[in-house]
């Protein structure tokens, strides 16, 4: 069985880049284009990990974390923020809202795969 990862980003090229990286590492990948779609997908499916952008239309990544915490539907799935933002204030806010990690774009594919493997506790996929 393939472990499924949800990639949430409003940029199609980022979703493709992240998706290809994870698929090449043996994961299954679902996509969502904003925080609201992402929240609905997390509530409806079981994901091993979520990769989420911060700045998106309709609902941004931090708002999605807060909404999941508030509704109690995060289901302990690790959520890694993948963003151009690097401010400590924002990183702290995401951490408090339940994020498991923070990667600053542009990302290194091997680093992303390592993060997902570590958070899903999968040394081999």
């Amino acid at each position: 069985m393939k472990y499924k990862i949800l990639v949430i980003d409003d940029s199609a090229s980022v979703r493709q880049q992240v998706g290809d990286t994870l698929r090449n590492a043996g994961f299954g990948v679902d996509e969502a284009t904003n925080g609201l779609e992402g929240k609905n997908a997390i509530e409806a499916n079981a994901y091993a990990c979520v990769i989420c952008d911060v700045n998106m239309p309709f609902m941004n990544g931090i708002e999605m974390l807060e909404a999941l915490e508030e509704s109690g539907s995060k289901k302990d799935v690790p959520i890694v923020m993948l963003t151009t933002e690097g401010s400590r204030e924002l990183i702290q806010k995401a951490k408090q809202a339940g994020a498991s990690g923070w990667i600053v774009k542009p990302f290194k594919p091997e680093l992303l795969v390592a993060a997902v493997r570590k958070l899903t506790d999968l040394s081999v996929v």
Partner: protein
Amino acid sequence: MKTTKQDSFELKIAMNDLQSQSEFHPFDTGSISELTSPPKSSAEDVIESEFVKTFTELVEYYAGKRPDVDRCKTDPSGETIAGIIGFADQGIRGSVLLLCSKSVLSDFAGQHQSINTDRPGELSMDFLGELTNQVAGRLKNQLIKYGITLEIALPMVMSGREIEAGCIGVCQLMHRAKWPEGELHALLCSEVEPGIKLQSKGENGVATEGTMELF
């Protein structure tokens, strides 16, 4: 990410629409030759310096080689794609616009992602929007050490022929990054209220590009 495909006349309308949609209102359009850019303040010098550093590093990352970056006054010719994003903080506002030819963008994008779907053109345009977003994001990270925390809008992408970009009444600087396979133009428009001085407070402590933190 919003994309539009227009000819050059309609493109100007689209950019005016963007102005009306944005809470930052940093833009107006027209030929650069028609526009007058006011003299820069020292704060604008700081923003320009950080912008050039940011732009150069990002092009180097994606092109795989360090580009030559110079100031220029001309827009790219022919079929062009433009990515635009606004930014603002108290007393500071502006925008970043990236422009390049479709062929250069396809080569550029292809080096870091396999565009293998049935809509490669759309993905190339989306990639320019993401690149514009990353330039603005890096600029934001660099300006934190000056006590500035920019709010950044979402990027918008458009394509057309003979795109002429400019801003009226604010400092505007066009830079061009050149590497053997192509060139990418970047227009920085910025407006800083008189009296605002930017002084570095040393290390900004931000997470740097390409790094990962697990909590």
